[in-house]
């Protein structure tokens, strides 16, 4: 799983109204040139991580992790807490030392380079703004330590203040700003010294839901305009999907799978990825020697396979919107159940169905389809799975279909 992430997922251009859009396009282009300042056409990979391992005492936090982040992309490291994602980010920044492995930044081996000279911008979850400095001094910090001329520093800080839409706040102290504003200052501060790569550690984790949502979309817009190679850590699947070009899913310190968000969602290669990315129904079942998967306690086969020789207990994963509801059998493999609960959720309706073996299956259908079917609690109903994933139960990484 070390291949470069190639494809770029199509982006929905219709994100909500954003501060960045207020800027004229040539100004933005200027920023992007200024921030990257790299010869056009140079082909290097932004971040390369090879065979990274890290232990804390006896706890193996990172196990043989390898991946690449192509130049100019925004990639998410997604995983539950304790999956090693923050540790990997901190190793890339040089804030932690790995026992094994190599970190390359824009084609240069950075493994032995101290943090100060790596040219990384780092955004912390709790902002880490210097409390005794104004917004201007915070952003200027990385330029001042490089002893740049004062006029140059001032000009650059002004540009960045405008970029993060905080021009009127230059003389405030961090404690006089809201959480979202603080995180924008932190971002400006990290971008000021023109980093090779930008690393963000749960950048929206300390913000409330509404601000988080706005800042997420804003970050995506900002990245589309400044194109600095970025890697961000999150435990929020939706956040990763909304913001990132590519997603790297981590579990127990290992890379489970990586790729564009849609590809991960449609073709998860392990039970973990299937369960972690969005809600899913899990049914117990068996794969028999004839290549038929049968859900436990159900008379009908769920699906016929082109016979992989093995057989054994399997888990069947079905997403709520991948199930069709009908009143009549139509020839396709069908499970019969009884409607236990109907929950209208705005544009769609969630229908919970109990199968004969008491397994609950959640189904999500559109409001129109719901009205068409005229469903009522307690009624019998047929479930037609349109798409399902099957994994062997004792080897959750071996994908059956």
């Amino acid at each position: 799983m070390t291949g470069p992430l190639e494809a770029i997922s199509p982006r929905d251009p219709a994100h909500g109204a954003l501060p960045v859009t207020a800027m004229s396009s040539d100004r933005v282009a200027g920023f992007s040139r200024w921030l990257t300042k790299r010869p056009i056409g140079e082909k290097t990979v932004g971040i390369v991580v090879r065979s990274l391992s890290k232990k804390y005492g006896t706890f193996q936090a990172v196990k043989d992790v390898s991946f690449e982040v192509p130049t100019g992309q925004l990639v998410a490291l997604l995983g539950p807490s304790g999956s090693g994602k923050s540790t990997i980010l901190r190793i890339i920044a040089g804030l932690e030392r790995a026992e094994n492995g190599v970190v390359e930044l824009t084609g240069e081996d950075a493994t032995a380079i101290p943090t100060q000279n790596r040219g990384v911008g780092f955004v912390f979850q709790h902002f880490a703004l210097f409390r005794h400095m104004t917004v201007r001094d915070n952003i200027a910090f990385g330029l001042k330590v490089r002893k740049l001329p004062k006029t140059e520093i001032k000009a650059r800080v002004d540009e960045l203040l405008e970029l993060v839409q905080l021009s009127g706040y230059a003389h405030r102290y961090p404690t006089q700003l809201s959480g979202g504003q603080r995180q924008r200052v932190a971002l400006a501060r990290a971008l000021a010294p023109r980093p090779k790569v930008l690393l963000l550690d749960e950048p929206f984790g300390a913000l409330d839901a509404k601000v988080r949502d706005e800042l997420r979309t804003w970050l995506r817009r900002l990245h589309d305009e400044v194109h600095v190679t970025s890697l961000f850590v999150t435990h929020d699947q939706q956040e990763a999907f909304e913001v990132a070009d590519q997603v790297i899913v981590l579990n127990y310190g290992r890379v489970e799978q990586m790729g564009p968000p849609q590809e991960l969602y449609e073709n998860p290669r392990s039970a973990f990825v299937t369960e972690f990315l969005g809600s899913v129904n899990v049914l117990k079942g068996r794969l028999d020697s004839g290549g038929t998967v049968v859900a436990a306690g159900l008379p009908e086969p769920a699906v016929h396979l082109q016979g992989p020789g093995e057989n054994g207990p399997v888990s069947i994963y079905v997403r709520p919107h991948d199930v069709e509801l009908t009143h009549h059998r139509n020839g396709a493999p069908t499970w019969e159940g009884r409607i236990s609960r109907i929950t209208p959720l705005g544009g769609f309706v969630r229908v919970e169905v109990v199968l004969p073996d008491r397994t609950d299956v959640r189904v999500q259908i559109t409001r129109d389809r719901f009205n068409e079917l005229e469903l009522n609690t307690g009624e019998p109903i047929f479930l037609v799975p349109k798409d399902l994933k099957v994994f062997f139960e004792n080897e959750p990484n071996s994908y059956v279909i």
Partner: protein
Amino acid sequence: MTPDLEIRLPAEMMRTDAGSAEVGRSKTIGQWLLIGAVVGWFSLLVFIPLLALARRVLAGGCTPFLNALQEPEVRRAFGMTLGITALATVVNTIIGIAIALVLTRQRFRGRALVDGVVDLPFAVSPIVAGLMLVVLYGPSGWIGQWLEPRGLRVVYAVPGMILATLFVTIPFVVREVVPVLQELGDEFEQAAYTLGASRWQTFWSVTLPSIRWGIMYGVTLTIARSLGEFGAVLVVSGNVIGHTQTATLYIHEGVESFHPEGAYAASVVLAAISFLLLVGMDWIRKHLEFREGSSS
């Protein structure tokens, strides 16, 4: 609502809370008794003794008081005290910050031991501290018997008094700075590293400004204690008038020799300096907290 209003809200709320407690509810007899007891106890122990001293000193008007302070003995004793205080404060501030940084940022064998030993000067009686120095540096002490023949006098001389003052004032800066460093964490320093700052630049521009209030407080306590130190200095000084006599030793001698005018005058000056130190400290602290809106 302007952002300004939003930010000051917590302070505003605290103020109205306190106000409503005073205006809204009338106090019960129990509450009045409690307040009376606190004020009374404080008066008995602090205010009345202070007043008594001031009254005794200024009984004959200001002129005798000022004359007493003009005495060469008094002036030399204060000169000695201020010199030792300045030296002890500078040394223990630098060493104290270093110890605090090591205790909070480094993990090493024996860290707990160092952590505990830092408090030793609090626990040990100053007179015992002085005695420890005499045993070590005295004419027949481990180091003293080696130093004396070379003409280096430590005990019953100024170096011993400096050492004694250094010993008793070690914990102040350390104890004020350690909790501030712990609360601060190392994320700010890491942020500075990622921005390209060296360790030295990070220390001066990030760590030091973040802990400056802890340092200031520790420095104030160090100064106050150095000015007032008596026991440890008494043991090691030999109390040679005009040579190894500090302000506190002068006061001690004045009281003993039944010529207490100078002693009283010197006492009032010492008390006044300590009082000003604490008030000034408090004032600056509040002033800067307001400007930065920060609570650390």
